[in-house]
């Protein structure tokens, strides 16, 4: 059994307008997605800005009111608040937020910030709690003198570490990492990612790793889902996605990864333009008449793509011929 099973999840935000302030339309932030997260793995969720990644992540930690669908954890549907309370759900599932500054209360000292989940879920004695906080700070590489300081006294990278320390405080089974490094510069990104991996090894945590950057995801994730306008367009292992992409949207995302090798820049640029060309010409082939993605079809045990059955087979064969 998987750790988390998401089934046909939908989150629609109502748009109210008119004199009576009635619901006239809705934003389909998440529109029917399904995937499973296994214990101990890092699952990547990738898509451009506004595709509904954060909304998905927030639904999984229970911050978002879900329109329909289910999220199963230990055999219970945690989209219901009563089930979450019953399971002490957030003891096991925590979140690292995209914006580290806004996610730390500016009026609280670091000790109180990191101890917050401990106080609510574990009820330790004062000394045990302080010791636990000091150990957590040590693990994320911060000195003990951070204890009585306020968030604005730290750099972006240090703040994100504090966010990580808070998320791991209760030793959760799953952490939703919502673009944990997108606000950091490259060298600090690598640092934070490395110790997120280290913590994963040491504590056996699963991540739902949300990012818009396939370059970062490659270093972190075994399984990846590609999200586009509230739907999943492709699911697969790292190899499936990076070496055998099928959907045009995935190919575009891959083409957008910057090429660091100078000698290949020209070739890279040409490849990107070619993908762009195909995207413009064949868009209606890849999306249905409303511009939405098709339902997923399985092309291999690990790999699924949102295309009509026939087209999917055709693209797979083309790929094999090329290879």
């Amino acid at each position, binding site marked *: 059994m998987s750790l988390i099973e998401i089934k046909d999840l939908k989150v629609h935000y109502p748009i109210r307008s008119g004199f009576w302030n009635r619901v006239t339309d809705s934003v389909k932030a998440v529109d029917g997605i399904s995937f499973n997260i296994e214990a101990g793995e890092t699952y990547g969720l990738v898509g451009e800005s506004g595709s509904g990644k954060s909304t998905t992540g927030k639904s999984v930690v229970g911050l978002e009111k879900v329109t329909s669908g289910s999220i199963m954890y230990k055999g219970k549907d945690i989209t219901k608040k009563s089930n979450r309370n019953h399971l002490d759900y957030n003891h096991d599932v925590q979140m690292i937020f995209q914006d580290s500054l806004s996610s730390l*209360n500016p*009026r609280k*000292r670091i000790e109180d910030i990191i101890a917050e*989940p401990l106080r*609510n879920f574990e009820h330790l004695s004062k000394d045990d709690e302080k010791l*636990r906080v000091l150990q957590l700070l040590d*693990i994320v590489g911060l000195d*003990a003198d951070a204890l*009585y300081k306020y968030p604005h006294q730290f750099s972006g990278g240090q703040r994100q570490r504090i966010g990580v320390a808070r998320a791991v405080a209760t030793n959760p089974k799953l952490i939703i990492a919502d673009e944990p490094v997108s606000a950091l510069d490259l060298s600090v990104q690598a640092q934070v990612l490395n110790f997120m991996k280290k913590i994963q090894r*040491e504590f056996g945590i699963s991540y739902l790793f949300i990012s818009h950057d396939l370059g970062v995801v490659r270093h972190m994730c075994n399984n990846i889902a590609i999200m586009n306008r509230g739907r999943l367009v492709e699911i697969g292992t790292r190899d499936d996605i990076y070496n055998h992409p099928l959907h045009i949207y995935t190919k575009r995302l891959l083409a957008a990864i910057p090429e660091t090798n100078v000698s290949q820049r020209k070739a890279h640029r040409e490849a990107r333009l070619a993908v762009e060309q195909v995207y413009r010409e064949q868009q209606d082939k890849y999306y249905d008449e409303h511009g939405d993605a098709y339902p997923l079809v399985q092309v291999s045990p690990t790999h699924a793509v949102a295309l009509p059955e026939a087209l999917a087979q055709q693209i797979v064969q083309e790929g094999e011929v090329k290879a």
Partner: protein
Amino acid sequence: MEENLNKHSNISAADLDRLTKEASEEATPSSAKIIWNEFKADKPAMGALIIVIGFILFVMIAALFINTPKMMETNIMNYNAAPGSNGFLFGADTGGRSVGQQLIVGARNSIGIAIGLTLISSTFGICWGLISGYFNGYIDWGMQRVYDFMMMLPMTMMIIVLVTIIKNYNAVTLTFIFSIFYWEGTSRLIRSRTLSESEKDYVAAAKTSGTSNFKIIFKEIMPNISSLIIVDTTLSFAENIGVETGLSYLGFGLPIQTPSLGTLIANANDPNNITQYWWTWLPAAILIIILCLSISYIGQVVRRSADASQRHGITD
């Protein structure tokens, strides 16, 4: 978890005391200390603080030694006695009553009502705004309709009507009557800040940390809008001194036998007093101006200390 942490961190229970001590040496000063430093760095603000606190303490204590019914007895002999004559330092009014004593008791009454009114209406307005802004949805919708209804009522007229209907009212009842009508402004202000504050991720983080809504509202969000609360409260305190004074001036505040700054200023209704007997009303007017200006100046300093980038005082 515990074994896990002990395995991966070099810190153990033995280091606890030492590390705690190190950390407290590096600790950031508390906000009370920061505010105090700010006052020390700003001499006029310190002056305003001393004036306001000193004056309030003085009238509160001095009023205890004044026999009000006796003070309010009319005495024709002292009709409009000039300051310094007949043993009246501040003179006497048309009824021959000591202006100096009336100032003390009147200021006590006016300030007392203003403090009570500020405490009740601000507390209520702050809670209303916080709750309404945090739970946007049906709760917010309902609370805002109540707010709209209260705003529709003509406030001054309602107070006048209530004061006329209620036969025996005193300073306490008057404070409660005022309070019914003075929480709306605060609540709207607090609600709009709470709405934007609730969107921030630290509120989401508190939710996923298992903190209850009640605690999130009062322990997470409220400290973050504390500068707004303090400034709004000091300014409404200054304003509330004016509320009672204004209504007493119009004759709908405290009963006649109870002196207040408003009844003293009402002496200026008589053209004779304005031109010849200035001591019957001018001191009260000057007092109100000084009080209100000092209080709003204090409010500004407190706001400045809440906002790190505007501080004058050195904190580290």
